[in-house]
């Protein structure tokens, strides 16, 4: 691998890798703005990953697989929301429970259906369609990086714009933000903060389901724990992105790059593989520390 071409494939895969982070974080942004710490992103993604690939294989349709995978994730989100909001359980505990449930149910079902607790390959599964626009691809460097990904990558970009419009341009978004900032104000005008929180949770179910579908469908396989902490990193991306869609997009790009780098750096650099594999997580910790330092000074600044 020559030195000059090394960064391009690495950046190309950055774009591919960041898509699930981005979708999960955008969903989590809605719950965050509605005033809830949604730690269930990881579990909802996992459920989406499992059911989308299983249904895609069973129906022979990628599209149906994705739709049913999202449906499963939204259903799990509803249960999570119902227990947290209507039964008033602690949202951290129910989020944790959702994650543990997702981890368990996917393996149990995999074993029941396929008799296998490990990696389940679906050999006949169609690949996710790839968008290739030759005219754009001819643009040097940028064309190689941005074009030629599967369609869901581009869907995730569209979702950034859609999320921004919903949050900032619609009455629904105004009410979601009002709910998080002062639920009492929303209640005083006769709206139900609980209802808007439920909507936010269902939205996070939708985007996490799609995020999970990308993970499993691009591999054509389900691996137990396929999400590997991506839901948690998405949660960090929400804060790092300063709770805005564009900020989240940039934060997810950083995390996508970190993972891509660690994939390429294995073998290329003479550093223990364990260290390289932990690179995305180290980046997360450093980013979080940096973010809180910046926040600290910003608060101090506005105080005086």
């Amino acid at each position: 691998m020559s030195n000059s071409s090394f960064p391009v494939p690495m950046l190309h895969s950055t774009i591919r890798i960041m898509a699930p982070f981005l979708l999960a974080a955008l969903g989590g942004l809605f719950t965050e703005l509605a005033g809830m710490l949604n730690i269930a992103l990881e579990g909802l993604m996992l459920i989406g990953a499992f059911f989308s690939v299983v249904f895609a294989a069973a129906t022979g349709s990628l599209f149906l697989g994705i739709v049913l995978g999202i449906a499963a994730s939204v259903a799990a989100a509803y249960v999570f929301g119902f227990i947290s909001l209507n039964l008033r359980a602690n949202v951290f505990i129910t989020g944790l429970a959702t994650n543990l449930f997702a981890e368990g149910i996917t393996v149990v079902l995999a074993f029941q259906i396929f008799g296998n607790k490990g990696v389940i390959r679906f050999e006949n599964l169609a690949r996710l369609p790839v968008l290739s626009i030759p005219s754009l691809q001819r643009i040097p460097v940028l064309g190689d990086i941005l074009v030629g990904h599967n369609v869901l990558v581009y869907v995730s970009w569209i979702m950034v714009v859609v999320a921004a419009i919903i949050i900032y341009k619609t009455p629904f978004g105004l009410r979601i933000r009002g709910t998080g900032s002062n639920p009492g104000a929303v209640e005083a005008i006769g709206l139900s903060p609980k209802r808007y929180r439920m909507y936010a949770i269902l939205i996070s179910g939708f985007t996490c389901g799609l995020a999970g579908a990308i993970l499993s469908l691009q591999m054509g396989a389900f691996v137990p724990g396929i999400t590997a902490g991506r839901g948690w990193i998405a949660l960090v991306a929400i804060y790092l992105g300063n709770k805005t869609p564009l900020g989240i997009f940039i934060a997810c790009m950083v995390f996508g790059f970190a993972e891509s780098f660690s994939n390429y750096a294995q073998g290329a650099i003479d550093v223990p593989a364990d260290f390289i594999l932990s690179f995305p997580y180290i980046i997360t910790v450093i980013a979080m520390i940096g973010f809180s330092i910046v926040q600290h000074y910003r608060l101090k600044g506005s105080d005086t």
Partner: protein
Amino acid sequence: MAYLQMHGITKLYPASGVLANDAVDLSVEENEIHAVIGENGAGKSTLMKLLYGLEQPDAGEIHFRGKHVAIRDPLAANRLGIGMVHQHFKLVPDFTVAENVVLGMEPRKQGLFIDRQSAVKDVTKVIEEHGFSIDPKQKAKDLTVGQMQQVEIVKMLYRNAELLILDEPTSVLTEQEIESLFATLGNLLSRGKTIILITHKLDEVTHMSHRVTVMRGGKVVAVRNTSDVDKRELSRLMVGKDILLQVNRGPTTYGDTVLEMKEISIRCRGQERPLLDRIDLQVRSGELVGIAGVGGNGLAEIEDVIGGLRGATQGSMFLNGVDVTSFSSEQLREAGLAYVPADRLHRGASLPSTVRENCIVTKHHDFLRAGVLQRRDVREFTRHLIDQFSIAASEGMPAGNLSGGNIQKMILARELSGQSNFILFSEPTWGLDIASSQFVYEKMLELRERGAGVLLISSNLDEILGLADTILVLYRGRVVGRLENTDTLSKEIIGEYMLGLRDDSHGPHETNQTEVRRG
């Protein structure tokens, strides 16, 4: 029929057993300012919550503009044309004024998006029509308190409210802001609106209202034309006749000073008027000092300072001769403070914890052996307190399962078990039934006879008059009256001090000057 007619409104809060509204009638005419006055706990706020649909009455009917109406929630109230300006503002700090106003009734374009331009335009129109001084594009968090209140009023006008309920609107305002609020009310009146003004400030009633309904103890005691009454009569109606407590307050001799406050003040940044203004206070052993006042005039702040929960910005405090001004609540307790707080459910007790844990929490060190609580000692101690104070509870029960009266008995048992020579009681019988109140009174007098110094902070004048040797009255953070409790002292007189009609301190500045001259 009147514009608004509330008839036979009754509301019982089952959790506390308080009958907040007892067959209340309220009749408001179109285009008048109708004041509803009463002391804290008289039932004014409850009545308004029922009118605005925040709560549902147990009995009674509401007729509005000639129609029998059921008001299920604030949206229903808004649809009828009823709007409420809450005492504590309900604004989203990060939203602009316009966003706060339109929230929930956003103007739309293409059916999907907020039409920001017409939102700003509509809000500007309301603001200009009524002469408010707010910018629709400013963030709510950057507004002054008076401006926030304007936003709340604009919010209701934007919703086409014809009847506006203002719940103690001046309690957080400065003098200038009060003036401009009064101007606003006049303007609203000239535009045909009807206003219900909830307050316990007599100045506002006589200045602003056409008619006044006086409430006491959940009932309506009088309805008057404002022009026909003076402040003294209103104050008499508010506090009612003297009720003699069934207690025997024998003579005691005063000993050494146990608690002393010297010129204690609390000032908040950005607020003109101090919350406490140079309070001098002395409690001697064998003396029961009562502090009276309407809520919001400094009673809670005095409680907080003595309890160590809030530092004074000026002045000093001594407990048994020790300077305790900067002590934490833990240090104060070590220095001999016993304290029965007004907020017994949160500050006085831990409801999920057991009676046992609640009883030993202030002295759990005494039950340690090698760092481990001695279960048997703890049980024995708790059982002893349960017997002695006849608390209807078992020691292992969570305190939250007890009735209000028994929770208070449990707190008393704990606080009095330490044999402190100074005990602070704040609103000790609020919400208690007669038997439990009687029990509390007897305990207080027992302490006094034992030679302890007792400080009673209470907005209940009957108990102040029945129990205290010396009475201090607070008004706007100042001691306006310092009275010996003799036979000639009556509730009416204290009431006049409480409502600012009498003032022995001659205002905040003059006291200062006399002291300067003396020095």
